[in-house]
């Protein structure tokens, strides 16, 4: 079996019809094809078992009423009809979208700001240090971070309000008011996730061709103008990727609000995934929980689709 693709491709180029005529070459090609399938089979099986099959099964489950303990009962689209009139669950979708938009907007803008600052540094040591520092929170356990942050944001005893009081500011009821809790959740998620966006943007900015930047400089473009009219358009595919990934993650937000606020106060930080968990595992309505999951999946697909549609006009591919 040929192990050097370059050699194989060259031989095909010079003898385009030979492979159709020579059984030995055909056998070799078949073998190679089989080897290729073998190589991707693990990934295909993984995706099928852990992604496709569960989605299909979840869709099936959404057509049943099932409390896990007794026999499931087929109810058709009744769960979907119920969802249309379920104010608290619809509200949770709204909360999810608001939080996701806040998280993505802040994560991307902060990630870009930090990346631009670091990219201007010439010292490789400084770049490496900043990359490590900003990426570190991403490695921490979300549950542990949420518990820790809950203490930090505590209105009465939290260290954040302590420092605010030192500079004469009044204590902020971070986790006990509607907007305070939403802002706290956004800040914490962004603090933990911004490292990922930052690393992507630093890599993208580094890959901007120097001759383009030199040309902009010779034309007299300011640093700000170079950033917005040269660098950002050139790295727009990376921005699209970062936006899509951040949005998908944010729409599945669970850990931080569940641990820090239990979805409160009231239902102000109750996201769709929290309602899904409560519906399924606390209220034993697994069919309806699956319905919520399917609708959330459709929302994620729709928002991702919109992002790609917008990308047609906004993203510049070299």
């Amino acid at each position, binding site marked *: 079996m040929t192990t050097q693709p370059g050699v194989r491709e060259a031989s095909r180029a010079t003898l385009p019809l030979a492979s159709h005529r020579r059984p030995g070459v055909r056998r070799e090609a078949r073998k190679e094809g089989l080897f290729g399938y073998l190589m991707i089979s693990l990934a295909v099986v993984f995706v099928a078992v852990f992604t496709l099959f*569960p989605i299909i099964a979840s869709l099936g489950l959404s057509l049943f009423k099932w409390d896990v303990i007794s026999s499931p*009962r087929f109810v058709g689209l009744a769960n979907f009809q119920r969802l249309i009139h379920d104010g608290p669950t619809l509200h949770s979708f709204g909360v999810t979208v608001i939080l996701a938009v806040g998280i993505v907007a802040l994560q991307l803008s902060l990630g870009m700001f930090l990346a631009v600052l670091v990219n201007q540094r010439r010292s490789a040591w400084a770049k490496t240090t900043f990359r490590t520092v900003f990426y570190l929170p991403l490695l921490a356990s979300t549950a542990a971070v949420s518990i820790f942050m809950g203490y930090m944001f505590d209105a009465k005893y939290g260290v954040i309000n302590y420092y605010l009081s030192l500079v004469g500011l009044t204590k902020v*009821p971070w986790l006990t008011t509607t907007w305070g809790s939403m802002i706290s959740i956004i800040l914490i998620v962004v603090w933990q996730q911004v490292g990922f966006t930052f690393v992507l943007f630093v890599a993208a900015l580094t890959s901007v061709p120097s001759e383009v930047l030199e040309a902009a400089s010779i034309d007299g473009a300011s640093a700000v103008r170079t950033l917005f009219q040269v660098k950002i358009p050139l790295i727009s595919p990376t921005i699209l990727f970062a936006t899509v990934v951040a949005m998908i993650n944010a729409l599945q937000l669970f850990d931080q609000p569940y641990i820090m606020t239990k979805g409160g*106060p*009231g239902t102000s930080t109750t996201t769709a995934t929290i309602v899904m968990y409560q519906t399924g595992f606390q209220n034993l309505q697994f069919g309806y929980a699956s319905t919520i999951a399917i609708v959330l999946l459709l929302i994620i697909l729709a928002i991702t689709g919109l992002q790609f549609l917008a990308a047609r006009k906004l993203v510049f591919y070299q």
Partner: protein
Amino acid sequence: MTSGFGAMDRRTLLKLGGGAGLASVGLGALAGCGSSNSGGSGSKTINMLYFGQQSSATALQNALQPQITKLDKTATFKVTGINGTDWNDFIAKILTQIASGSTPDIVSVATEGLQLMASKDLVIPLDSYVTKDLSSLQSYFDDIHPALIESMMYQGHLWELPDSFNAGSLFYSTDLYNKAGLSEPSATWTMDDFHTNASKIAKVSNNINAFDWVVRLWGSWTSFLYANNGNLLEEGKYPGGDWLWKSAYKNNPTAAAGRAGGWKWGTPTANSAASIEALQYVIDLQKSGLSPSPDVGGGGTLQGLFASNRIGMTIGGGFWAGGLHNAGMKDGSFNVQMFPTWKSNKSLFGAGGYGIFKSSKNQDLAWEILKLMVQPESFDVIFPGNVTTPGRKSLMTAERYATTGPKNWQVFYDQLNGSVPISAPPYYNALATSLNQRTTQAISSGNAKAALDGMQSDFEKAAAGA
């Protein structure tokens, strides 16, 4: 089991991927599709689910194994610890295990989950076992408070053997009481006394709060609600239970007087005048700076703050004796008193006990283990260090509390008189979720009535769907 058109066997759905379906939505890690029944495999492994750390579960397992071997030489006792912030969390995880097709033989469930598990036919009534072994259990019934037995009854049947409880009493820091120039409260103190004391404690320092509490069903603003002669649900009792009261308590008819077939939680009364007044009272405590914004569930933060003398008073049960001692508080630095009287001296409690799973293939042996676990000598093996209150009165001794305190340890048991179990109907989980959400909504908005109207609506929907 198929029940006509549109119905499908539960196991079949699991095999078809019901559990996997949940995986796609991020729930699957919790809902496996296992088909093995660890307790029902025909082996003599008795599996028990325990609310706590695995290290404690293993210690319990190792401690009881020799006695279980005496019952059956081939039996192996396996205890699985399940962590959770509260009983709501614990019950959700038990149900997850059931969803995966893996059920234990014995389950330790508190009042919170009793009616839920009994109504879902997950556990078996113990009536026939109790009747059969009544003579050997007589010392147990003579010793344990009948209110605890009644709290483990549902629809006339006994579903668990209780061994522990916690009633909502009032803990206070003796140090802060001294600093505020207050004398310690008496057993007959009132809400006016409580408020006066709170106001004086708040003046000791800006860094302390006179009172703190936790958002949950047990020992929350609900303690004020009960003292205000209210409840979240209409109180009632199921008929029946005579089979037990007339036999096990034949020597003590006074104790059995008025007892029936378990508590029946009726129409929601979450937005009654008593509820609104009680919730508004704790909101006003916060507004006036006498209490901080409370945490939801658990109670670890509150315990830490109390142990560091930053909280003057809070609601706690016998479990706090060990908890505060373990947190470093010395005997004498805290004490406990009956919850203050408001419009009534009604208070609340939650009991803990053990039931047998219906799917267990070793129910007879499980019953023998249950009897073993409610023996007096088993209590400290299962709950070392005063982390709960013994249900058997003979275990309530000065010696027990000599190391941990508090001085008024008798209050723990006395509080049971006139108290009512927390209102945990079969739809407890939905009730607890709403209670947490609506309480935090009330604290955030300052409007108890609006939040309780919402809670009432939530309860009515949950009750209708149960």
